[in-house]
């Protein structure tokens, strides 16, 4: 296992910088998630680490060795592809053995290591099957075993959960995370699904238009997003546009709200779960009278869309616990409030860009 360091990586197609001066480091045994909307360059970045995309400038170092000019087969990375990319004409065991055979490992050792890898992913009984005869979850585990058995320096995951159904995704993700931690694999994980990234990564790197917008732990990014884009991409956020004023923030609708003070243009963001309703607003700094516009029961939470006195709309999420149900009807007037420390003043990087 090893450390991965990417310096000033640029990849251009024609005039378009798909990956634009990325600096990234994955420590030994760390799982770094590259997260962003489609077309943000995260997949190109992953594929350039694997060697499938020749980079335009910059360097990729694994354990201090610059691999950026090496062919894919010389880099000792282990990649799990989105569609698994299993060899359909080989059995599960032959798939897993492939990388070892390429490394000219002796036959007896190959057998031992394949058996061990299949055991790790609980597929010992399926060794002789063809990939076609396996379920999606099983195929994914074959792909993982195949990538791991060669002891790669860096483990690369290209949306490995996206072809699984919703119910399976969570448990397979947790198993993959447990395996990665157990084996101490330095891992780069690409996804557009924030839940997968939050659930699995030690560190998240939020990308947009080829650049890194912000990086950090899940808690850090969710609680202290640097910009409106990050706040909106990770979870949902109520964004109020307006102007920071002395001791607070005045919304475009004209309400003055308490907030931290800041310079320069900002928007005020507050998470739906931090909107307190009715009696919950006791003792918080901001309390307003709002009109209920829609109420949507979603099982574990109820989502209410509220109209603020200034004409802004905000969304509140109430967790439905037995004995603490929310009873709201469209048209009701209700007190809504939030703590000042639950608000963030963010740079607005959403209105300028497309």
């Amino acid at each position, binding site marked *: 296992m090893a450390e991965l360091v990417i310096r000033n990586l640029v990849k251009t197609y024609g005039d378009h910088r798909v990956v634009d001066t990325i600096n990234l480091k994955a420590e030994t045994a760390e799982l770094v998630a590259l997260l962003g909307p489609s077309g943000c360059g995260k997949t190109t970045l992953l594929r350039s680490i694997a*060697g499938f995309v020749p980079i335009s400038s910059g360097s990729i170092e694994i354990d201090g060795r610059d691999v950026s000019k090496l*062919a894919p*087969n010389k880099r000792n990375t282990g990649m799990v*592809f989105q569609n698994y*990319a*299993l060899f359909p*004409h080989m059995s599960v065991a032959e798939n897993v053995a*492939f990388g070892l055979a*390429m490394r000219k490992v002796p036959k007896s050792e190959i057998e031992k290591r394949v058996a061990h890898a299949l055991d790790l992913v609980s597929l010992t009984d399926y060794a002789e099957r063809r990939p076609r005869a396996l379920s999606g979850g099983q195929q994914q585990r074959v792909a993982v075993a195949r*990538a791991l058995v060669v002891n790669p320096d860096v483990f690369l995951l290209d949306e490995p959960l996206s072809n699984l159904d919703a119910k399976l995704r969570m448990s397979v993700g947790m198993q993959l995370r447990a395996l990665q931690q157990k084996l101490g694999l330095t891992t780069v994980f690409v996804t557009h699904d924030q839940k997968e990234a939050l659930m699995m990564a030690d560190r998240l790197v939020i990308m947009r238009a080829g650049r890194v917008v912000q990086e950090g732990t899940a808690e850090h990014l969710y609680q202290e997003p640097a910009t409106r884009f990050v706040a909106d991409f990770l979870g949902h956020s109520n964004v109020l546009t307006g102007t920071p004023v002395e001791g607070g923030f005045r919304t475009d609708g004209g309400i003055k709200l308490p907030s931290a003070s800041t310079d320069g243009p900002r928007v005020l963001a507050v998470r739906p779960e931090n909107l307190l309703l009715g009696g919950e607003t006791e003792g918080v700094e901001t309390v307003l009278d709002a009109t209920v516009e829609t109420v949507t029961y979603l099982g574990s939470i109820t989502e209410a869309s509220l109209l603020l006195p200034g004409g802004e709309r905000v969304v509140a999420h109430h967790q439905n616990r037995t004995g603490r149900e929310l009873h709201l009807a469209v048209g009701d007037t209700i007190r809504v409030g939030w703590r000042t420390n639950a608000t963030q003043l963010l740079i607005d990087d959403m209105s300028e860009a497309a």
Partner: protein
Amino acid sequence: MARALTSRLLFGSLIVLLYLFLLLPVLGITYVSFFNSQFLSFPPPGYTLRWFANVFEQEALISGFITSAEVAVLASLIGVVSGVLASLALVHFEFPGREAIKSFLLAPLLVPGIVIGTALYVFYIQIAQSTGWNPTRSLVGLVIAHVMLTIPWSVRLIAASMGMLDRSVEEAARNLGAGALKAFLLVTLPRMRAGIVAAALFSFVISFENLEVSVLLVQPGATTLPIAMLQYIEWNMDPTLAAASTVQILVIGALLLISDRFVKLSQVV
């Protein structure tokens, strides 16, 4: 409900009729090959197997069969190898105008065989006049001509079967330590099997059946089977040719069935 059933019956019988129509020559000629009469007449006075025996006594037909088989094997071999290489080039490298080149691949299919034959005939005469070596004396001239028929098919069929392949599988092989050549031989080539079998079969049959291209390029005494058959029918009206045709259909049918065991041709062609 009732109307759905009616239209189903209607369409079903249409398909059956079409098939009968298409199979008419095959069935008819097979039937005629058993007629026990020197000249064709209906109804036949009786049935016999002797025309099948007679086929194997006709040296012209036998040597035509051998020539055709030799030429077809060589031409499809060359066609398939070119097909694999060209498909690699077409599918692997995303160069500008790739789509245009694919369209272009149709063009040779549409050049009339008689034009190819005429052109090569003229060309070979030039070569014979200036070098003294006549390409039609050996099989080389014929094989070159037939390769022109097999390559467009091979490239199209193999490229199509390769285009359906997911490139990430080859990337996985590279990622696992295989060099470009090994990844191709161990992973990509086996997955092209369906296309290769289809291309080989089609090439063989198209070369074996061809008359247009060959007709100007053969030497007396070294003709291909279709030409030998044509020459035979000019002088004989007995069912020998029907028997030869039956044998030919059986051979091609067997080839088709055998390759269908390996790959579902209907998915490729």
